[in-house]
C-alpha cells in the first residue's frame, strides 16, 4: 500500500490535541487514534504517501525504519478495513517539513485504531444519507 486518502463521502474527522477522532456516518461507528495515530491520520489527510509517513515517524521518534513501516502499514490496513480511507492514485505530495509533529518526548507506541459501536443504532435514521454516487457503484453523479 503506497497512498491512501480519507473516505470523505462517508467519514467526518478532526484532530484535537494530537488525537484523531473519526465517525463513519454510513454506519455510526466512531474511532479514536492517539498521538502517533493522530500524526499518521493528519499526514494521510494532507496527501502524504505512506512512505513519507513512515520516514517522518522514523526521524521524529528515532525508531528504526522497519518498525515505522510495519506500524504504518498495519494502521493503514485497519483504516482500509473499516472503510475510513480509500486507495489514492498519487497526486502531488506536500512537503513533509510542514507537518505539525506531536512532542517526541511523549515517546513512541505503535498506533492503535480504537473502535466504538455503542451509537450504531442511534445513527440509522438521522445522519446524512449516503451519496448517490456510492449507490451507483462509484459513478460520478452529483447530488
Amino acid at each position, binding site marked *: 500500500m503506497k497512498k491512501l486518502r480519507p473516505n470523505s463521502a462517508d467519514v467526518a474527522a478532526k484532530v484535537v490535541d494530537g488525537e484523531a*477522532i473519526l465517525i463513519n456516518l454510513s454506519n455510526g461507528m*466512531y474511532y479514536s487514534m492517539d498521538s502517533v495515530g493522530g500524526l499518521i491520520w493528519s499526514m494521510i489527510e494532507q496527501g502524504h504517501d505512506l512512505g513519507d509517513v513512515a520516514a517522518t515517524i522514523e526521524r521524529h521518534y528515532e525508531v528504526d525504519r522497519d518498525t515505522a513501516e510495519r506500524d504504518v502499514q498495519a494502521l493503514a490496513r485497519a483504516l482500509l478495513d473499516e472503510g475510513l480511507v480509500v486507495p489514492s492514485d498519487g497526486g502531488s505530495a506536500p512537503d513533509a517539513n510542514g507537518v505539525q509533529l506531536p512532542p517526541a518526548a511523549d515517546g513512541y507506541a505503535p498506533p492503535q485504531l480504537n473502535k*466504538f459501536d455503542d451509537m450504531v443504532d442511534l445513527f*440509522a435514521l*438521522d445522519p446524512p*444519507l449516503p451519496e*448517490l454516487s456510492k*449507490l451507483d457503484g462509484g459513478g460520478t453523479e452529483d447530488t
Partner: protein
Amino acid sequence: MAPLISCIVPVFNGESHLRETLDSILAQTHRPIEVIVVVDGSSDASAEIALGYGPPVRLVRQDERGPAGTRNRGIEEARGDYLAFLDQDDLWHPEKLSRQRQRFRLRPELSVCWSHVTLFWSGEIAEEGRRRAGHPRGGTVPGYATTTMLARREVFEAIGPLDETLWFSDATEWVIRAREANVVMEMVDEALTFHRIHGANLTRRQDARSRDEFLQIAERALARRRAPGS
C-alpha cells in the same frame, strides 16, 4: 380514563405537507389528544393552515429559535401526561399512539417508546428513492428521533430539554443523555412513522454542518469515556 397525549408539531415554512401531517395526527385512534403546532419564524402560510383547524389543534408562534428550540417550546406548552412529536413532513400510522401507549400499559417502568420509521420519497425525487431501494438505510430503520417518540412528560424534567445549539443531532444527543441516566426505553419493531424525503430535507441531511455535529457527538462521547469515574 386514557391519558392526554400532547402531539407537538415543530414547523418552519412547512405549508407543503402540513395538512397531511395534521390529518394523520387527527386520524389517531387514541383519544384524548392535544395538537400543538409551533411555528418557528416562517414566511409561508403554515400558521394560517394550523389556525384553520381549531381544537384540538393549537397554534403557538415564536421568533426563530431553531428546530430543537421549537420542540422545546412545544414541551413548555404541553399539558399532556405523555408527549409525542411529529415533524412537519412526516406521517403517523393511525394506531401509532395507541400501540405505543399499550407498551406503557404492559411495562409501567417504561419512560420512552420509539418506533421504526419507513422512508418515503416525495414526487419530485421519487426516482432517487427508486435508486436507493435496497440500501440498508433506504427503507425501514430504527427511528431514534423525536418524530417516533412517545415519552412520559416527567422524563424531560429528569433529562432536560433538547440541546438548542444542535440543529441536526438534537435527538441523538438527547438519547445518549437518557441512556446514561438509565432511562427505560423501548424500540418497537413496527414502522409507526413514515418519514418523507424531499428535495429540501435531503439537502439538509447532506449539509456539512450536519456532519460536523455528528462528529462533535462522537467527540463528546470519547471525552466522557476518559472522564474520571466513567
